[in-house]
């Protein structure tokens, strides 16, 4: 049981941080740049992608033994396109505001590299539950990243936070396209900087742990064997 939780935890952590689609892999950039004019828009875009990602991952994983290897890419694309068509109908009916603000980027979720990428790299090989978790957390990682960019651009560009005016200033640069590239670039740099530092700190800690009990037998080995007994 413990091992299972660890296994799913690792999938989740990979999707959120290690392989963060927006900041680490830099995939699905069109949607990120185009929809991050405001926090609400980017949050909506992130959730839409998450929904499509989850559904397509589950369906592709269910069909992974049925789809012949040679025609897998067209098959994946048709599944994803169907999901996007469904999502489009639902949004048009129930959240027309978001539907209008997404414009051409809603059909373009079909060609979002993140979704096809996860289908090809993960869902076509792994069991359903794993794929579902991978879909949710990759999607959430993307949603968080998009929302961060959206918040920064909205705040600097119009002084508001999720549509609520908090400061009285406007910097036009951040609401137009040049600002999108700029903020995205800086965000990637910061993310890389922070994760690198965290990685370095973790490795230093591990090295210290290994060095201290160097005299007697290493502790980790004992721990792992105890776990196996359980």
């Amino acid at each position, binding site marked *: 049981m413990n091992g299972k939780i660890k296994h799913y935890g690792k999938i989740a952590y990979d999707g959120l941080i290690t392989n963060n689609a927006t900041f680490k892999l830099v995939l699905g950039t*069109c949607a990120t*740049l185009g929809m991050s004019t405001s926090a609400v828009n980017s949050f909506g875009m992130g959730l839409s992608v998450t929904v499509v990602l989850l559904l397509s991952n589950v369906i592709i994983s269910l069909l992974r033994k049925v789809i012949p290897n040679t025609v897998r890419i067209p098959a994946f694309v048709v599944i994803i396109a169907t999901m996007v068509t469904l999502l489009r*109908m639902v949004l048009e009916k129930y959240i027309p505001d978001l539907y209008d603000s997404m414009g051409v980027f809603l059909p*373009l979720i079909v*060609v979002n*590299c993140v979704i096809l990428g996860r289908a090809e790299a993960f869902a076509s090989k792994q069991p359903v539950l794993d794929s579902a978790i991978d879909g949710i957390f990759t999607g959430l990682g993307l949603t968080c990243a998009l929302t961060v960019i959206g918040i920064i651009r909205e705040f600097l560009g119009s002084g508001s936070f999720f549509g609520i005016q908090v400061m009285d200033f406007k910097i036009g640069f951040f609401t137009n*396209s*040049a600002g*999108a590239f700029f903020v995205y*670039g800086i965000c990637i740099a910061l993310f890389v900087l922070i994760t690198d530092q965290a990685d370095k700190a973790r490795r230093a800690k591990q090295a210290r742990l290994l060095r201290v009990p160097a005299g007697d037998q290493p502790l980790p080995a004992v721990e792992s064997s105890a776990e196996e007994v359980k």
Partner: protein
Amino acid sequence: MAATIFLIIISAVFSQNFILVKFLGICPFLGVSKKTNSALSMGIAVTLVMILATLVTYPLYTYIMVPLGIEYLEIIFFIFVIAALVQMLEKIIEKLSPALYRSMGIYLPLITTNCAILGVAELLLVNDVSEIVSGVAEGISMNLGFALLYALFAGIGFTVAMVLMGGVREKLEKLPVAKCMKGFPITMVAASFMAMAFYVFSLL
């Protein structure tokens, strides 16, 4: 008429540039722009597929899907048309000119998942030219001729941005850049400055 054509050209190439203003086709823009030559090949391949895709999807939508009332299937139909076209083009180029295939071949399959192609097909589904080209008088209805013109020049705009970026990145490679800014971040910042330059066109 002449004014409309001129405005479509300026808008598609500069003021509504697909990469730098509309954010369509950013993946190849970041992935294949390390060298000017490969950027140019990719740009030409994309332009070619854009024109062919428009030539098929626009009549398909207006003359078949709308009369049959199946507009809601547009995404599935369009992506299928684009995938089939790319596959076909790949085979044709391979047969006709092996040299061109070798230089362009690796970029062709990538084009299927290029937002710019599906983007142009979706954008062109308007009734009035003024909806996608600012400055055009209202009442000029969209037709296949305008659609193809827009697709051609959107592709040229794409190529221009790709080649410019290729040049910038060739120079950037040789410069000392802070470690965390290496790769994507510095490219994005460079793209930001290019986008600023293109933004000026929309003020004219």
